[in-house]
């Protein structure tokens, strides 16, 4: 009975991760690629093919591994060492996944503006924002590492509690 319950939980989380790390980014980048310029202006939003292929490759690659790890982690019993290990691996892969977004050019946005005969450009570098996000992710790595150590050190207690339930 426990095995079936675990498998169902693992499958549900795998589907959630496939949707959030593969399907939604894929659809978003495809939508951006097919965008023309903003109506009534010369602001081009379209993405070139090379960039699109590169980001889709990394999104698919890491999305697949993260979803696989999610199945392994969430189908494991709670507070088990294998759940701790795979949760930690998943967080590290998430960091790689987030950083791979820079290949899309999404971290360096530049708009060329033409108003009448005047031309100008607006550049937004959100690389620092990604850095900030990765810094917060580092705290999650510490938290997951602590969880793993806790599961290993208190393994006997956790097992006894599980048996006693």
């Amino acid at each position: 009975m426990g095995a079936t319950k675990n498998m169902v939980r693992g499958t549900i989380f795998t589907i959630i991760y496939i949707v959030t790390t593969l399907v939604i980014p894929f659809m978003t980048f495809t939508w951006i690629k097919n965008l023309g310029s903003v109506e009534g202006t010369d602001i081009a939003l379209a993405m070139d093919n090379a960039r699109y292929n590169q980001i889709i490759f990394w999104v698919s690659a890491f999305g697949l591994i993260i979803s696989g790890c999610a199945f392994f982690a969430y189908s494991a019993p709670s507070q088990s060492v294998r759940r701790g290990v795979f949760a930690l691996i998943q967080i590290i892969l998430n960091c790689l996944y987030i950083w791979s977004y820079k290949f899309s050019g999404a971290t360096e946005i530049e708009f060329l503006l033409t108003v009448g005969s005047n031309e100008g450009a607006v550049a937004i570098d959100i690389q620092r924002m990604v850095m900030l996000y990765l810094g917060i992710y580092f705290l999650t790595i510490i938290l997951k590492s602590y969880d793993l150590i806790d599961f290993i050190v208190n393994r006997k207690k956790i097992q006894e509690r599980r048996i006693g339930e």
Partner: protein
Amino acid sequence: MLFQLDDILRAIAYYVGLILNFLKPYILPVGEWMIIWVEYLLNFFPTEDLTIYFAIFIFLIVIGAIVNSKWPGDKPKAIKEKKGERIDDSVAKCSNCGNALGDSEICPYCGHVNK
């Protein structure tokens, strides 16, 4: 409703920005360090085709299913049986009403003396 939502979103964005601005001097150097090792690790990932990633995905699912069916985290059968035995057989019961006796010979429930 949508107009109200806009205000709520603005407020959330404001407070998130406030927290992030406060954390920025501490978190940003950590983020910079994270990028160094993330970029180093990315060099080891194959960039030719997705087959290897599909293989890893399927491998993780299959291994996860096998490991789970073998070690689902349930109570071991031996412990379950032992636990049942302790409750049913090792505790003395009153011959009159069947209530658990403990160390006493007199049943605390019906007062029957068990010899």
